[in-house]
């Protein structure tokens, strides 16, 4: 068709904020992330409330917390699994939550990348460290003062 003019289609180029949605995001990541937030949330309610209750409400509450208390708990595989699950779920849940927030507020791609890298690193470190602690934990380390240790160490 003989179109001789150089005029842009209506309003093109005037679109701001720039429309950057070209290219579909791959896969169902956002969906699973969303679903995970809800599933982990439900489980976390049980885990965290249980944790808080035992640590802060039962017996002497917060004052009872010391090495002995923790050691005593982790000698029991039940609490080991409990705390492990809580660690992983809470960290993944929290990391994903913070990721969402970064996506929302960091507008420049660069900032977004940096912040997310820091977030993932921190989370990875904490998760690995926490896991190691729970599994390699020795409730009765040699050479420690006996009164610091859980009661069963003396046995």
């Amino acid at each position, binding site marked *: 068709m003989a179109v001789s003019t150089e005029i842009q289609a209506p309003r093109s180029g005037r679109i701001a904020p720039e429309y950057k949605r070209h290219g579909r995001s791959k896969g169902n990541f956002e969906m699973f992330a969303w679903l995970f937030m809800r599933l982990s949330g439900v489980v976390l*309610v049980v885990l965290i409330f249980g944790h808080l209750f035992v640590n802060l*409400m039962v017996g002497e509450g917060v*004052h009872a917390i010391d090495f002995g208390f923790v050691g005593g708990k982790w000698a029991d595989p039940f609490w080991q699994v409990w705390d492990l699950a809580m660690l992983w779920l809470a960290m993944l849940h*929290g990391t994903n939550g913070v990721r969402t927030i970064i996506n929302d507020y960091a507008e420049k791609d660069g900032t977004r990348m940096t912040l997310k890298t820091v977030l993932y690193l921190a989370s990875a470190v*904490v998760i690995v460290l926490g896991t190691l*602690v729970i599994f390699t934990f020795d409730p009765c380390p040699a050479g420690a003062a006996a009164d610091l240790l859980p009661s069963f160490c003396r046995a």
Partner: protein
Amino acid sequence: MSKTPAGTLYRGREGMWSWVGHRVTGVAIFFFLLVHVLDTALVRVSPDAYNAVIATYKNPFMALLEAGLVAAIVFHAFNGLRVILIDFWKKGPKNQAKMLWGVVGLWVVVMVPFLIRHLTLAFTGGH
């Protein structure tokens, strides 16, 4: 190209403010969790180190902070359940505001006994 002139704060209602609360508490808990895992990791270093750090937590100021943290977690948890109900329960969206008042109510119900016990313990001192 054209910049948006700054305006006033949007006057959202229950839904928006609960979301703000959820977001703020979520981030707060997350940062606490980072620290909490690290301090707990000290049990791997030595009982003394762990107890030393834990001992510094055992003062009224930290008790208040702890109370705040628990308050945040309890709100986040209950509101999280509300959000889940909005997502999956047919009548959830219709009842979201009522459910928020439910969340607040439950939060009070849980927090009052907790605070009484936690703060009396903290201020009267155990040991």
